[in-house]
């Protein structure tokens, strides 16, 4: 296929001097710096970006809906309280640990329940649990860190160290996630922002999500984020929204004593998917969970 310029040839062959004489020098310099349109790569030679490798989420219905979770991409799951987010999170964790992949859970609210995870068949030896909801560690009074014992630069560094120790759990979680993704080697990294209020979650800068997404690109790491409302925006390759069927039931249909949590119906909707080439249509699926007590 031959390429042809998008503007008349005469304009290309016009002597530079006549063009330069009609334009200010600064504008002419800028125009000269623009890439010539004749050097644009034709569409026939453009390569297709390969689709990411998909791994199972541990839930058959989710895998049928989305094809699984993409490696090297950010997957976000949002929903209100009791919408099944943590159940899905544990299923994903169980599937990853059963594949003997090293997994990390950045628990912003320190809400992880070991008993539920054990029932979900999560292998704890492969799981690194980071509990961010803590009181800041106390500052050690010591000669080595005593203010005034060193230079001004050293004292400033000590003050920075002290200020850093008063970070909020979300700030700790972002720094910890940076360290985990830079270290590499984890098959699954989960950021659990499920109990973080919408006001605080919205304050997470988009640059953080972008940085995470770039850190895991071309790696086998799955970054799985659990939130109350979508936070990662365009950085998420897959965005799912969860809700429970039971919330739609009227109060008259009260479940029996032992059926309150049994067979909880979770509805899943794809809000956004950048994995398929075609724009994702709104698709839903439902799966049910079983409770620990009756299992």
């Amino acid at each position, binding site marked *: 296929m031959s390429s042809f310029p998008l503007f008349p040839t005469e304009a290309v062959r016009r002597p530079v001097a006549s063009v330069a004489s009609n334009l200010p020098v600064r504008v002419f310099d800028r125009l000269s710096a623009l890439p010539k349109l004749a050097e644009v790569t034709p569409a026939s030679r453009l390569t297709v970006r390969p689709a990411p490798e998909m791994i199972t989420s541990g839930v058959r219905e989710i895998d049928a809906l989305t094809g699984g979770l993409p490696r090297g991409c950010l997957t976000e799951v949002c929903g209100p309280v009791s919408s099944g987010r943590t159940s*899905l999170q544990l299923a994903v964790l169980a599937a990853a640990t059963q594949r003997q992949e*090293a997994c990390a859970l950045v628990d912003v609210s320190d*809400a992880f329940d070991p008993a539920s995870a054990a029932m979900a068949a999560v292998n704890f030896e492969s799981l690194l649990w980071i509990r961010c909801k803590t009181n800041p560690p106390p500052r050690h009074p010591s000669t080595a860190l005593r203010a005034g014992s060193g230079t001004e630069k050293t004292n400033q560094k000590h003050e920075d160290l002290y200020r850093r120790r008063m970070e909020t759990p979300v700030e700790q979680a972002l720094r910890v996630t940076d360290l985990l993704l830079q270290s590499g080697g984890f098959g699954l990294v989960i950021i659990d922002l499920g109990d973080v209020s919408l006001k605080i979650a919205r304050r997470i800068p988009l640059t953080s999500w972008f940085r995470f997404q770039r850190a895991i690109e071309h790696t086998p790491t799955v970054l799985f984020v659990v939130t109350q409302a979508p936070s990662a925006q365009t950085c998420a390759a897959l965005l799912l929204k969860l809700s429970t069927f039971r919330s739609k039931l009227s109060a008259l249909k009260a479940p029996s004593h032992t059926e309150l949590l049994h067979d909880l119906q979770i509805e899943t909707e794809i809000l956004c998917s950048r994995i398929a080439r075609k724009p994702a249509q709104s698709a839903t699926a439902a799966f049910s969970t079983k409770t620990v007590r009756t299992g």
Partner: protein
Amino acid sequence: MPFACIFVPDFPVEALLRNEPVLRSQALAVLEGKPPLQKVFAANENARRAGVVTGMTKLQIEPCPGLALRTRSVLQEAAAHAALLDCAQSFSPRVEDAAPDTIVLDLLGMELLFGAFSKIAHDLARRTLDFGLAANVAVAANPDTAVLAARGFRGVTVIPESKESERLGNLPVELLFAGEQNSEQFLETFHRWGIRNLRDVAALPDVPLSERLGQHGVYLQKLARGDTSRTLVPVDPPLVFEEAIELEYPLTLLEPLAFLLSQLLDHLCTRLATRALATQELRLELELADGYREEEDSVGTGALARPSRAQARQRFRRTLRLPLPLLDSKTFLKLLQLDLNAHPPGAPILKIHLAAEPVRPRPGQSGLFLPPSPEPEKLELTLARIAGIVGEDKVGSLEILDTHRPQGFRMQHFAPNNSFSPQGHRVTEKSNLQFPAAPVTALRIFRPPAAVTVTVQEGRPTFISCLKRKETCGEILWTAGPWRSCGDWWEQDGWARDEWDIAVREEASIGLYRLVRDLLGGRWLLEGSYD
């Protein structure tokens, strides 16, 4: 049968220069004794040229310009001697520990591995320099000649067989008595006879010499001629890898401490690599500048003084345990820095002692189809950094305890297994856990649990209000329970509780929670939400 000798001249000086190489070009004198009666124990060549002699007092040498003074450090000499042994044993398995500054090696068969003897001698000299020690190296047909040549000639010396007498001839007669005690009588006799060098000793007639000086005189003559023959007494020292340094001035900041630790770690890693070993445990001991006060027994009987509380705090110890054997000094330094940042010593530092526990290194071969896992060195650094952010007890893997107590678990160090390690094979078998047919309804725990006020009707909770979680306030739509559990009633911290599963109408949905009544305290607590 060739032998090599490594001799470090001015050994106490070299042991100090190992940790302060900048002083190598200066005049340096090493003092020993308690002030103010300190005397010169050793000095380097520059100091001797400036007029410093062994035995001079500190007051006598202080006027010397450009002279650096250091206190003798037995710890550093021991570390230097151990480094010398490691260096020698990297060239030959048969090594004799002749003196703290002298090592003799049996080079029989080593030329097939390392090349010609002259090449081995140069490699030995280079290797000792890598360990921070400037040494003389000599190779000869018998050990005693090699020792004399190393002590008498600077640099590298190779004495061909049957040329011993000729090469040793010009060496001073004092060399025959180096390291010997009760040798003043023989030395004085030789000086009275006008004997100044080993050629003169070798030229003495045998019978008159034996009549006057006995068998020892004959032995000295054989030494001077290079005619002695003996077997080595090989040494098999215990594998102790320790490095220490004593500071002239107390250290108050962590940055210069890191610089010194880097030097010590480099020495340790070099010595471990020489023996093809790695380490899985580093022990750091710092001697702090707390004062030691002697207290007499309260009875006043003159019994042994009881050490004060200050002495008990005088040593600061940290142990770094690694899940896998490593041999990267930069990784060790970073881990120690992060650990000291989290647990600073609390007082100025006077002495640093670092020891490594030697183990076999881990095999480097890995499989093609293994799942992704973090590199051990990077993982340790990452875990140390994360511990510095959230706290040491808030990062790691879980271990469920064998108890019915709620939240019965503990945190432990995270060490993922891969299928190539023996433990990994066991994990592979254990990991074939039965997958649940459907996902489990998970609980999100509130840590700490939220105190709530509950209205109870006919034994069932009907209304809930919580100050900390306003979204959970409201009418309870459905309840399930109670499930009663209790335990440890024989302990002081026994527990008894009733658990309810409740559904509360919220703004846009229905929230499912676990409500707990503490039967011992009578409180209602919201333990978590089902999600």
